[in-house]
């Protein structure tokens, strides 16, 4: 597993954390009202003081590690999935919760329960392939007063009435319940196969510097059943979800301008994750890579040189004027695998605080000449906010 896998999620966190940390440390001297800071500005002053860093491998313990790790500045719970109704109509969903610890040196004597040590951000999206619609919702809350939070036993992460939770007697099963006005999701996720500890037994080293790493595990294939509500209509759905969990206290480099990340379930039972880091000069960063969990449960780690990414066409965002690749072709030489990746809906750009594209995709290709099909999620960042 390439040590840089976790950076794709980190990108979203960055932009989120930039506001908090930069505001916390610097707002007093800055002129507010000018919109948001650049990524580079934010990365220069992370809110890491007083937090532990991921420096060596650790013993993972479940379900305890599903819960929060407040000694680390950043943490996220990331769920994406492809779903089908009984008529075969296709849907996608994303439900993400981010925890960001606030600068520790500024903590006051907590005279008020509103006083918080962390802030949560949640994103919830639903894609309806048949009607070609995409809905994205965002919420923020402080951790104070339990308006948002996370706990290990029984497992629960929540933002207002949005939550993902396990019952005490079945910690392997997670239930996502999210509703926001005209759109709602209520699905149960059952892990199929073992939990994958990414990187070096769960320590995902980011660069040569000690501590610039994260703890990272995934549950790549989770059988999903439940219901989706879009407007007045409640639709029973089934499908597959992918969960990523990561926590760290890291500052990230400034060389990259964005990422393209793929999480794909092939119908032969293998799960593929690929990511490309795009450098400021337009090249693919050598730390790009990926992994394949094979049908037999074995893990194949991919290096940048093993993969070629080729954008096909262009989609111009009417919202941000960002120019995104319309489709992708990925070749994985060691596996003799060629994949054509196409979004179910062209416009799956999230119109939230941090603009990015993340949506359900369809996969067609060949493995050693044999046709394969699949589905998954694609994330494209850094196309809309490069100024």
């Amino acid at each position, binding site marked *: 597993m390439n040590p840089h896998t976790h950076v794709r999620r980190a990108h979203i966190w960055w932009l989120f954390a930039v506001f908090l940390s930069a505001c916390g440390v610097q*707002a*007093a001297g800055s002129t507010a009202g000018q919109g*948001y800071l650049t990524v580079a500005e934010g990365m220069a002053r992370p809110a890491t003081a007083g937090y532990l860093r991921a420096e060596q491998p650790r013993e993972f313990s479940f379900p305890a590690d599903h819960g929060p790790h407040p000694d680390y500045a950043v943490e996220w719970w990331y769920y994406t999935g492809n779903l089908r109704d009984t008529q075969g109509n296709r849907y996608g969903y994303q439900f993400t919760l981010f925890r960001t610890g606030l600068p520790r040196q500024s903590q006051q004597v907590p*005279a008020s329960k509103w006083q*918080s040590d962390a*802030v949560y951000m949640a994103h919830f999206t639903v894609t309806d392939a048949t009607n070609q619609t995409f809905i994205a919702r965002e919420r923020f809350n402080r951790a104070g007063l339990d308006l948002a939070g996370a706990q290990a036993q029984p497992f629960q992460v929540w933002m*207002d*009435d949005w939550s993902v939770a396990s019952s005490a007697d079945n910690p392997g099963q997670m239930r996502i319940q999210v509703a926001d006005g005209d759109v709602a999701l209520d699905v149960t996720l059952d892990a199929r196969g073992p939990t994958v500890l990414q990187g070096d037994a769960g320590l995902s080293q980011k660069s040569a510097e000690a501590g610039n790493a994260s703890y990272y595990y995934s549950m790549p294939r989770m059988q999903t059943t439940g219901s989706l509500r879009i407007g007045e209509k409640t639709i029973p759905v089934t499908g597959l979800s992918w969960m990523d969990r990561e926590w760290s206290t890291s500052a990230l480099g400034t060389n990259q301008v964005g990422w393209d990340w793929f999480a794909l379930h092939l119908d032969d039972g293998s799960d593929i994750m690929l990511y490309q880091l795009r450098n400021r000069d337009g090249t693919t960063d050598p730390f790009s890579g990926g992994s394949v969990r094979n049908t037999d449960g074995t893990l194949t780690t991919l290096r940048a040189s093993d993969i070629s990414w080729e954008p096909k066409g262009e989609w111009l965002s009417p919202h941000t004027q960002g120019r995104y690749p319309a489709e992708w072709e990925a070749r994985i030489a060691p596996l003799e695998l060629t994949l054509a990746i196409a979004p179910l809906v062209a416009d799956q750009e999230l119109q939230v605080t941090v603009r990015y594209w993340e949506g359900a995709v369809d996969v067609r290709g060949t493995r050693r000449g044999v046709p394969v099909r699949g589905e998954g999620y694609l994330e494209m960042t850094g196309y809309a906010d490069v100024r």
Partner: protein
Amino acid sequence: MIPILWKSTLRWPLRRPWQALLAIIGVAMGVAVVIAIDIANESARRAFLASTESISGKATDQLIGGPEGIPEAFFVSLRRDAGIRMSAPLIEGYAITTQQPTRTLTILGIDPFSEVAFRPAMSVAGTPLQNGMAALLTQPDSVILGAKTAAALGVVPGRDLLVRVSGIERPMRVVAVLNDDAGSSSALLNDVVLTDIGTAQRWLQRDGFIDRIDVILHSEAERAILRDFLPTGIRMTTPAQRAQSTTDMTASFEINLNALSLLAMVVGMFLIYNTMTFSVVQRRQLLGTLRCIGVSQREVAVLMLVEGSAIAIIGTVVGLGLGIGLAQGLLALVARTINDIYFVVNVTQIHIGLIPLLKGAVLGIVASCVALAIPTLEAARTPPRTVLRRSSYEEQMTRIVPYIAALGLLGIVVGGVVMWLGPSIWFSYAGLLFLTLGAAMVTPWTTVMLMHALRPLAVRFGGLIAGMAVRDVITSLSRTGVAIAALMIAVAVTIAVGLMVASFRVTVVDWLTTTIRADVFVSAPALNANRLDTALPAGVADRIADLPGVVRIRRYRSSMLPTDRTPVLQIALDVTSADYETFLWAEGNPDQIWPAFANDAIIISEPLALKRDLHVGDTFLLQTTTGDRLVPIAGIFYDYGTELGVVMLPLDRYARWYADDSLTSLGVFVTPGTDPEAFVEAVRTTFPNVALLVRSNAALRATSVEVLDRTFAITNVLQLLATIVAFVGILAALTAMQLERMREFGMLRAIGLDPRQLWQLILTETSLMGAVAGIVAVPVGTAMALALIYVINRISFGWTLQFAMQPEIYIQAALTAVIAAVLAGIYPAWRIARVSPAVALREE
């Protein structure tokens, strides 16, 4: 023909510019006072509504709790259990800048993450994390200001703003400044300090509670669902309802100011009437000539109307301008009273609405036309032959004076009846107006009677000149009558308002003596002098009780209680038999009141009882934290603390019903021989780091009286304005009258009167007029005072006042009348005495 006619009309005022000028001033001042009051009231109301409206933002509904507010845990439940994401918690409070000039700032404790949907201004780019909002969470004591407010206070991001919050001086760290150029957001950020709700809780000592929750609901169905979710003690209202019930509190105050301003208008009307009558009388010869050479009645009427309207229009326009300027001055007084008594409003700018201007213009012109009608008709109707003889007019005047007086008496009677039987405050004022006009109409006849009575005395003691002066007052009644009436009304108003204020003061001071018995009072500092609803820190009462020299402590918990109408003050308190005598009962028998009060009843204040027609035995709906309760009323006590009304209940019952055991003030009784001021110091040193307002009995009484006096400051200003209007009127009338008699005085000079005697004649005449006005004003002013005290005060505020007869008020008023009259005689006397008899004889 017509051009010459117009020329003659035009010529008249041009030849006597001072006369037209004084008329214009009269109209202008009347109009100015009316619109100034209107604009000041309207500006204060608008400032309040604009700030509540912008603070409410896009909220469709609001959730409010009991005296302590809403427990913060309910907000979490609203989000997590009811799934109401479109909800924003809020704490409002006030801070005062410690740098000069002091400014009251509204503290708005917000949750930045909840704001976007409600108050987009707080997150200009549409995200809660920008513009330094997040710094509110991470930096202690951090605040965000609007650019205009920051500029006005002279602070920039990174600097501290020194303020006093809840009596404690503390720095606020400005972490960001929001651009408030956008029109809608500017009102929101005006004198507003944005801070995190947690910080606001700490500053305002609101641990565990929030003031309210704004929500956005899209349908009645959603509203019904939320209503079902609400626990007892949390109620749903709308921003409009809340704002309305708050501004309704000032209704009586505004009506009374309006009525007082109308009084100035009435005096102004007299002035116009006076001027126009005078101008007709002076021109009788000219008008008679015109009629003789064939000018029709209609043409004469039109001529007079055009001239009068010109004065009315110019006067009104000038009055509008003056009024706007005056409004700026009155605004501070109006705002201070509202802040002292009703609610906190921050208003520095006047808002000039079209309605007050139109109202002022219409009033000015209509009043002028009414005042014009009588002299115009008179001028047009009079046969040409008669017109030519001036004496005919005076004869006619003398003939009709008794009839006018009879009509006036009728007016007084009608006014009295309307006042006593009238169902509303407007009837009372209409009655007062009738009474005033009636008294004015009786004045000329009274003048004649007084002069006849005075004449023998004047001749005997003052000689020929005095006798002449007395006779002159009667013979020029057409002009002196109205002038005396105008002065009389002004003086009567002075007496009435003076007596009312004096009665008020005496009553309140008596009441304070009865009710304020404890030696030392302790409360949490509050911004609003009359509203002590800030809770004391826990434990203060117990520690004070343990101090040496304390005999006993009386505990109070005050809060504003929302009702189906305007909010009332609710005071929960300890009552022991030692406290019984601190109550004065308007209704109810103490022997029955106290057992009932201890059992399950409440007692209410007189204003509340009068305004809502409540009596002993009725019930009153209390919206308590543990549910709505219909509570019997055991007694009605006199209270002059607030016209909003007071509900009292025992402290232990309050704690049960409202699930709140906090206290807002303490009355401490110390052992005889303990110096209260020394004890005040002892309390202060016991709590060096707690913001407490500790006052001795004497200091508290002084403060109360001070607030009372501040409240009447605006009344005094209006009274003064009415007096100025009257003074201008009397000056105009007397000056014109005397100048008109140039020829007569020339004749007198020619037959041997020296300048000194001429001075004597004129000044005697004017001082006689002033004296008459002063004498008549005494009964009239007293009657008006009685009406104000026993009818208008009672209906609008609900207070029973003791009538305080204060001789100095009468003396002062009579002196004002005579001095005004004498002053008015100086200029004509000086001018006439200077002119040589020959020149004077050539006049006309």
